[in-house]
C-alpha cells in the first residue's frame, strides 16, 4: 500500500550529468514519511519482542548458566544484591529479567516454553529476516560525462549497504537496450557493454526492470549525457539512438 509500480525520475542539474532513478516508493510527502517511520518503528518493536522471546527460551533451557538466577529473580532477591555496574553483562541480564517480570513481558516465558526449540529458532530467524526487509526498492543510474557510468541498487534488507558499480568511460563500449524472455513475457532492459574485464554486460535496473518506454527514455538521456549531442544536436542524436536501438532489438 505504501509502494507503487516502478516509475522513472530524472535528476539533471547540468547537461553533462544525469541521474535516472527507478523506484517503487512514491515521491516523499510528509504523510508518507510519517507512515514509513511508523511502520519501521513497529517493525523494530516486533524484532525486539522476538529477541526477548529467544532470550526467555534460552534462560529456561538447561544450557543457561543463569538458570538458578531466574528462580531467584523475585523482588526480594533483587533488593539485597548490590546493583551490578552499568553496561556489564550482569546488568543487561538483570534488566532483561526485569522486563520479563513486567506484565507484557510475562507473556513471553509461557510462549517460549510452549514452542519446541526446533520450531522456535528457525521461525524467529525467518521472522527477523522478514522484518528487516526494506519497504520499496530503488535503483539508480548515474551518468557523468568524462567520468563514467554508475549503477546502484539498494540492499534487500536494512542491513545491506547500497551496492554500487562504477564503470569508467574508457571501458564503456556501448549502452543499449536488449530484450529477453522472462516467464511468458518479453522484457526490455538497459545494458552497459563493458570493454575488457570479467563480466561484459552490466544490466541496469536489474531488479525492477522498468517498462520499454522508460528504458528508451533512459537510453536517450544517457547517450546524450555521455557522448554529447544533447541540446542543439539533440534531434540527430535521438534519431541515431533510436535507429541503433531498433537494430539491436531486432537482432
Amino acid at each position, binding site marked *: 500500500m505504501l509502494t507503487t509500480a516502478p516509475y522513472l525520475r530524472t535528476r539533471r542539474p*547540468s547537461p*553533462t550529468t544525469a541521474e535516472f532513478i527507478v523506484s517503487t516508493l512514491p515521491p516523499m510527502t510528509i504523510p508518507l514519511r510519517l507512515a514509513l517511520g511508523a511502520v519501521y518503528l513497529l517493525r523494530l518493536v516486533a524484532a525486539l519482542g522476538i529477541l526477548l522471546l529467544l532470550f526467555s527460551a534460552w534462560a529456561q533451557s538447561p544450557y543457561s548458566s543463569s538458570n538458578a538466577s531466574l528462580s531467584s529473580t523475585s523482588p526480594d532477591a533483587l533488593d539485597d544484591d548490590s546493583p551490578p555496574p552499568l553496561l556489564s553483562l550482569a546488568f543487561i541480564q538483570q534488566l532483561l529479567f526485569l522486563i520479563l517480570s513486567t506484565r507484557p513481558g510475562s507473556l513471553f516465558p509461557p510462549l517460549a516454553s510452549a514452542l519446541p526449540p526446533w520450531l522456535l529458532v528457525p521461525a524467529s530467524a525467518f521472522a527477523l529476516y522478514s522484518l528487516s526487509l526494506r519497504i520499496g526498492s530503488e535503483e539508480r543510474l548515474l551518468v*557523468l560525462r568524462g567520468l563514467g557510468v554508475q549503477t546502484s541498487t539498494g540492499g534487500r534488507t536494512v542491513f545491506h549497504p547500497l551496492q554500487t558499480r562504477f564503470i569508467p*568511460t574508457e571501458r564503456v563500449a556501448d549502452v543499449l537496450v536488449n530484450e529477453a524472455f522472462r516467464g511468458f513475457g518479453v522484457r526490455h532492459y538497459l545494458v552497459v557493454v563493458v570493454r575488457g574485464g570479467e563480466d561484459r554486460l552490466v544490466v541496469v535496473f536489474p531488479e525492477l526492470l522498468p517498462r520499454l518506454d522508460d528504458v528508451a527514455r533512459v537510453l536517450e538521456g544517457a547517450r546524450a549525457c555521455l557522448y554529447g549531442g544533447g541540446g542543439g544536436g539533440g534531434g540527430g542524436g535521438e534519431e541515431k539512438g533510436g535507429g541503433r536501438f531498433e537494430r539491436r532489438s531486432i537482432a
Partner: protein
Amino acid sequence: MHPFSILTLAIFVAGYITARWDLVTRLYELIVFAWDKGVIVRAAQGFALLTLTFTLVLIPVQHIARVEADLHDGLMRVFWPIDITTSDVPGVVVGWRNSSLDVVVIAVLDHVDPRSVENALKTGILLRSAPHAVPRIFEICGQSSIHVLGVTNRNSEFEPDPSWVRATVGASYKVPKITCPKASSIQINLFQRPNPLRMQYISLNPIALSLADKENNASYRVFDSSDAEDEKQERKNKQKNRLLVDKEDQHSGVGHTPSQKDKALARVVNQINWTWELEHLLQKNVPLIGARPKRTLSVSERVVEHAVNMRDYLILWVCDVVILYAFPIIRSVFILILIGHRFAAEAFLQILEWRARPNSPALKDVSATAQQVEIRLQQFCYWPMQYVKLRLRKNDWDSVTDSHPDYIRFYNSLWLVANDVIIGIALGSYIIDNADWVADTISMLLGRYTINALQSSISWLMGWPAGLKLNSELALFLGDLFLWVIDYWSSCIGTLQPLLPHIVWFIGFSSFAGASMPIALFSDLLSVLTIHIYSFYLASARIYHWQLTILLSLFQLFQGKKYNVLRNRVDACDYDLDQLLVGTILFTLLFFLLPTVVVFYLNFALARMVIISLKAIFDTLLSCLNHFPLFALMLRAKDPRRLPGGIRFELRDTPDRLSINSTPPSPSFPQPTSVIYLKPVPLTFTAMFHQYFQMGNRIRKHYLSPRVLFCLVTGRFVPPIHRKALYSLQYSMLPARRAGIMEMWNALNSLPTKKRPVNVYPYGFPQPNGSLNGRRHTNGRAVRGM
C-alpha cells in the same frame, strides 16, 4: 651532402648545359617573352590574392571553429578537496591541470598574488624543503608541473585568465561556488582527502589481499590425473570465452573515442591521493613567496633558545652516540642470526621437498605436519624480504600507495602466527597437563570406533543383515578375512597403547610452535591409525569393481555382442553354444554373489567417507589458522578507507538556482553546475573471503560432483583431493619462488643504515626549530605501526 658528390653534380650540370646550349637559349627567350606579355605580374597578383584570402577567411574560420568546439564540450571538471583550509579572504587556487578544463585542486593559498605564485611554482620555491625527491611527485601524478588554477573570493573587477576558475569559498559555504568564463557547464567533484600518514588511499580497483602472480602459476600446475581433466576443461572453456570476447570486440563498432578527460581518471586518482601531502608542503612554503627572509636571531634570543633546547640536545647527543656505535653491531649480529636461520630453513625445506622421482609425491604432499612446517619455514624466509620492502617505503613519499597491500599482508601473517602461538600455548599446556586423560580418551575412541564398531558391523553383515539373505558362505569368508586382519591390527594398537601418552605429550609440546601444529599432527595421527580401514576400503572396492566389470562384459555376451578393443566400440559377435553356456552360468553365479560384496563394500566406503570428512574438518581448521584475513577485518572495522574497493559517486542537490543567479560575478552567465561527491567504497567482505569461497568451490567440485558418485557406485577408487589444490589458499600469501640465501643477504645489507637523527652538531649552533622538529618527527614515524 658530400663535397665530392656536389662536384660531380656540378660537372654534370655544366656538361649538360654545354651539350644542349640551344635549350638554354630557348628558355631565355621564353622568359623574355613572358615578361613582355605580363605573365609574371599576373602570377604575382594571384599569389597575393590567395595569401589575402587565407589570412582573412580561413584563419578566422579555424579560430571560430576551435572556440565553438571548446564551448560545445565546454565541461569544466573540478576536483575539489572538501577538507582543505579555506577562509573568506582572497586567495589563489593551486593544483594540477590535466587538460584546459579539467583540474584537480590541491590547495588554496591565501594573501598572495596569482602572478607571484605562478613564478614561485615555476622556480620551485613552493616545493622547497620537501622531505623526499620532488621529481617523484610529477612522475606519479603524470603532469610536469603544478599550475595556478584560479582565484578565490575576488571581486568582479579582477580579470583573470579565461580558463581560470573563480571560486567563492568561506566558512558560510559548504560547497564552493565555482564559475569559469570559458566553460559552458561545470562539474564539481568534492572529495574527502585520504590521509597518507594513516595509509588511506583511493583506487579504482579493489585492493588485492593475496599475491597476484599465483593465479597464472596455479592454472598451469598439473594436479593428479582426475583433476587435470577438470582443469583442462575449465581452461578450454576460458579460452573459448576469450575468443568470443575478442570476436565481439572486433565486430562492435569503434564507438566513442575516449577524450582527454576520459583518459585522465587513473591519473586523477593518483593526484587525489597526493593532495594531502602536497597541500601541507605548499602551505608550509607560502610564507616564502614575496616576504623577506626572517632576520637572524639576536644574542639574547639565542641564549633563551639554548636554554630551552638544552635537554633535547643532551638526549639527541646520547641517541647519536648509541646509533653511531652500538647500532651497527646489533644490526650485524641480527643479520647473521637471520642468515643462520635461513640456512637451517633451507636444509629443512630441501628435505621436505625432496622427491625420489619427478612424479612421486614429496613429503609435504603426503603429511599435513610436513606441509605445516613447510608453510612456516617459507614464511620465515619471506618475512625479511617483505620487511626490507616495507622499510624502503620510508624513504619515499607517504602518498605512494604501491606497498600498502604488502604492508597488510606482512602484518596479517605476523599477527596470524602470533595468534597461532598464543592459542597453541593454551592448548599445549592443557594437553600436557592432561596427557594421560587425553591418551586414554584417544585409545578409547580408537578401540570403540575403529575396532569394536567395525568388528560388530562385520559380524552383523555375516549374519543376515536386515533380513537380507546374502550368500552365507561368501559372507563368512569375507567377514573372517576382515576380522582376522582387524584382530592383528588391534594387537598392534595394543602394543602402541603404552606409547600413546608419550605421543600425546609430544603433540602437546609441539603446540608451543602454534596451535596449527597439534592439529596437523592429529590429522596425520588419524590417517596412520585408520590405515586398516583405508586398506579394507581399497580391497573391497577392488573386488567389487572386478565383479562389476565381469558382469558387464558377460551381459554383453548375453546379448550376443562383444567389446572391440581395437575400435573402442561394441560389435556383434557369434558365440558358440558352449561359450554361451559357460558365460551364462558364470553370469548367474556372479550376479547372485554381488549383493554380499556390495554390502561389504558399502560398509567400508562409508567408514572411509567419514574419515575423509574428519580430515576435511582438520584442514579447514588449519586454513583458518593460517590464512584468516584477521588484519584486514580489523582494518575494515577500524578504518575502512585503508581497504579501498573502488570509488562511487553521489549526485548532490545543487544549491538553489536563485542564489547562483543573484551572485554578483556573472548574473548574465548562469552556468549549469552539478555537485558530485566522490567517495571511496570499502572492500566488500565477499572480496576478503574470496579465497575461502574458491577453496570451498574446489572441494565441492571434487567431492560432490557426479563423477565421484559414479566412482563410488562402480567401485572405482575415489581419489582424495590433492593437497596442493586444497592448500593453494595458504600459499597465496607466499611468492611462487622463495628468495635465495644470497638474495636475502644482499637485501638485508642494502637496507639504509640509520643516519644521525638530526643535522645538528653537538658543538655547533642549533638550527631553527622547525627543521629540528621536522626531522625528529620523521624519525618518530618509524615507530608508527598499524
